[in-house]
């Protein structure tokens, strides 16, 4: 943090805050604070606990331990609407607008905070009501002008573009005359131009001495706009300070791209892929809500290989796997497994065809035992009276993950994050898939366990299983993949062998930003080279 002579009372002060969900410690003992008129950015890889921390600050969750002070008042355990009354306004990752209201009316609802209208006053006192309406209208237009939505004021909120909806949320938040603005992933889903507009707006607001706290996976935007950056990983704060320093912090780079000298084994060349196409995806297009996530993504997986797709958070990786697995509708494009088309099949059918997805955040059945979870993995191929076969397969999974054997009858919800991930992978294998797809297996898991998991993946690969792995943790993928593609903003921007990509500066750039023409002078630090991979630690 830049040294300043007078340090006023911090706008937001988080002291030793922890939050646990079941067996997973989402946030642990986080402390940070920042002062008035600053923009504070909270970043961290997927699963680091950003959203949980944000929800703790905004009053959605109550912390298990620790104290949160906003503008000097203690707010942990205070309902969201009371926190808002303290002068805190927020936006949402998926804009939560009042669809049936016009743009101006959306802002006018925000104005209502000062004196929430009562039933009696609305039914009576017509003239006063009308006068206040007029005042509110003028005030709303002022806020709309500020975010540049003046011309849209009479349109319905639901007819706005995604970017405009974001701006409208900011305008609505401003209408409550906040002293602290909380922004939940403000840049997600925006085009480059829209992001630039947003950054300009945030700077403009800061100039008015408004404090802003934002979480964002688009690190380059945060680096660009924030005065103060807090970095989380595994629910803990790993770095804090000015963007410049944080950006060059090896711990941060490692958090994002993975450990370079980790225990993960090198690519084994003993068994080459056969060359036959296992999975081919052509020009996949998919939407989540109104937002286009996949923009004609094409890739393939060769039988027996590990294919990796890496990219920053929000690039569309999970949507890509979910679309292939049949969880999300495919708007356009073709998917084939071997010679069979799987497009348009529901998920429960796709798994029968031989594609098994280990979903993001694991999706284990928390109320069932570990053994029951594993057994259900074979549901797609279960044809009665095959219990013994299933039990044999469970034994195989236990052989891969000995830890699970000890936990066989434990409730899955009581497992730690890493153990749950092992369980999820084991469960995925139980389907005896022709293609195993893994969505961020390293998410929120301690490095030791990540290494363990990647060791198992390597074993599987040597056993001939085709694997498609999607990761934010690029370096760990480089360790085991035959080929890696980089997905950015719904497009595959490059594909190559790990060796090719490891030296490509564009990969780091895709994650942490860098030479962006619009960036300020301080933002042009040279891209961080990826350290050469350590020699393999063969089992």
């Amino acid at each position, binding site marked *: 943090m830049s040294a300043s002579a007078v340090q006023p009372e911090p706008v937001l002060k988080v002291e030793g805050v922890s939050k646990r969900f079941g067996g997973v410690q989402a946030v642990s003992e986080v402390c940070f604070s920042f002062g008035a008129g600053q923009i504070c950015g909270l970043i961290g890889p997927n699963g680091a606990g950003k959203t949980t921390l944000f929800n703790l600050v905004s009053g959605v969750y109550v912390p298990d331990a620790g104290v949160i002070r906003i503008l000097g008042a203690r707010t942990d355990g205070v309902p969201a609407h009371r926190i808002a009354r303290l002068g805190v306004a927020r936006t949402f990752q998926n804009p939560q607008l009042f669809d049936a209201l016009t743009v101006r009316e959306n802002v006018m609802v925000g104005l209502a905070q000062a004196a929430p209208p009562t039933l009696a006053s*609305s039914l009576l006192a017509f003239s006063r009501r009308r006068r206040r309406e007029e005042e*509110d209208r003028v005030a709303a237009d002022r806020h709309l002008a500020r975010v540049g939505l003046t011309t849209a004021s009479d349109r319905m909120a639901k007819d706005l573009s995604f970017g405009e909806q974001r701006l409208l949320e900011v305008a609505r938040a401003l209408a409550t005359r906040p002293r602290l603005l909380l922004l939940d992933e403000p840049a997600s889903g925006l085009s480059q131009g829209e992001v630039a507009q947003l950054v300009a707006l945030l700077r403009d607001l800061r100039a008015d001495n408004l404090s802003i706290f934002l979480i964002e996976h688009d690190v380059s935007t945060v680096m660009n706009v924030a005065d103060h950056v807090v970095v989380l990983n595994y629910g803990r704060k790993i770095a804090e300070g000015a963007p410049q320093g944080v950006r060059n912090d090896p711990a941060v780079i490692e958090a994002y791209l993975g450990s370079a000298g980790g225990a993960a084994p090198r690519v084994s060349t003993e068994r080459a892929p056969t060359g036959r196409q296992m999975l081919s995806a052509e020009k996949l297009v998919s939407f989540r809500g109104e937002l286009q996530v996949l923009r004609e993504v094409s890739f393939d997986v060769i039988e027996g290989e590990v294919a990796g797709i890496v990219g920053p958070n929000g690039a569309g990786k999970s949507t890509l796997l979910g679309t292939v697995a049949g969880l999300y509708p495919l708007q356009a494009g073709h998917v084939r497994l071997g010679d069979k088309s799987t497009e348009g099949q529901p998920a429960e059918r796709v798994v029968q065809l031989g594609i098994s997805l280990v979903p993001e955040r694991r999706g284990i059945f928390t109320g069932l035992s570990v053994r029951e979870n594993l057994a259900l993995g074979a549901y797609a191929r279960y044809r009665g009276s095959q219990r013994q076969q299933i039990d044999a397969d469970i034994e195989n999974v236990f052989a891969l993950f000995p830890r699970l054997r000890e936990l066989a009858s434990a409730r899955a919800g009581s497992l730690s994050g890493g153990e749950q991930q092992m369980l999820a992978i084991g469960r995925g294998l139980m389907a005896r898939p022709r293609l195993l797809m893994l969505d961020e297996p390293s998410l929120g898991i301690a490095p030791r366990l990540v290494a363990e998991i990647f060791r198992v993946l390597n074993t599987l690969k040597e056993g001939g299983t085709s694997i498609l792995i999607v990761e934010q943790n690029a370096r760990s993928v480089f360790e085991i993949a035959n080929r890696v593609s980089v997905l950015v903003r719904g497009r595959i921007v490059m594909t190559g062998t790990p060796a090719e990509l490891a030296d490509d500066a564009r990969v780091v750039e895709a994650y942490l930003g860098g030479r962006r023409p619009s960036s300020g002078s301080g933002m042009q630090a040279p891209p961080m080279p990826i350290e050469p991979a350590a020699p393999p630690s063969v089992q």
Partner: protein
Amino acid sequence: MRPSTASRELLILVPVALALAALGVLGNTYMISMLVIAGIHVIVTAGLTLLLGFAGQISLAQAAFYALGAYGSMIGTVHLGLNPWLALVLTALGSGIVAYAIGVPTLRLHGHYLALATLGFGIIVNIVLVQETNITGGPTGAVGIPRLTLGVELTSDRQYFALVWFVTLALLLVCRVLVTGSSYGRVLRALQASEVATESIGIDVARYKVQVFVLCAVLASLGGSLYAHYLTVISPSEFGFDVSMEFLVMAVIGGLGSVWGALAGVLAVTAFLEILRTVAPMIAPNIPTSEYEVVAFGGLLVLTLLFFPDGFMGRWRRFAGALRLGAMGR
């Protein structure tokens, strides 16, 4: 340009009022009374429309508040000798207070706790009506409730028709203006769109939900009072759990959120039963068809919800919206 809220509503109101006036002049006693009852049902259903539409909550006690209105007016006029209008207002206030007492603890919780609480409340009210014979007249009911007066005693169906529909349309208009043309209504519509965002603005969502529930109960109570003074005889079986269900059905069939939906729902159900009664004997003159009414009613409800999950008004809004977009060349 958007015309002012009130004048937009008048564009609906005037033709409805004219059509009703025409029916009021042309119709026979039966049609007039049927429409009087329908008018009262519109008031009661409108409350549910608001509650379901804006607070996203179900009340299974609408008939109980309807009963509170009717019995309150009965007790006020018959036992206490109050002026009927005074009794009506006091009863509505009382019903509002009862609703407040139910709403505060249940609406602070997330989930459909109001539905559970009102289920219990609705049935208990009905049992009390049956049991407390000295006050309520017991299961046979209470008689001798005076007619309302407006200078003169309103004795004819036609007079009552005019009164009820005047009150109904006035209440609908007030609700409509409240919802579409006031800062209060804006908050309600915000609540309907996103509870979490409304809360994030610093608005106490539970408070508004409670208020909508109170409004819903007050409307039911007003309907009940009008009912009691119209029939002059009331008994508990008019206010049972099944009646609460029927109000709910009419609200959902009509479409939620807009009180005009209540009008559409009540008229649709009334018209449907009437058509059934008229047409069924023509098709099968020798078969006693009356039992089929219940089947048909259930069928109508299920089919309506399958094909128009947003109710008739919702369907209409979407249709009209599509036309509007078409006209704009989009």
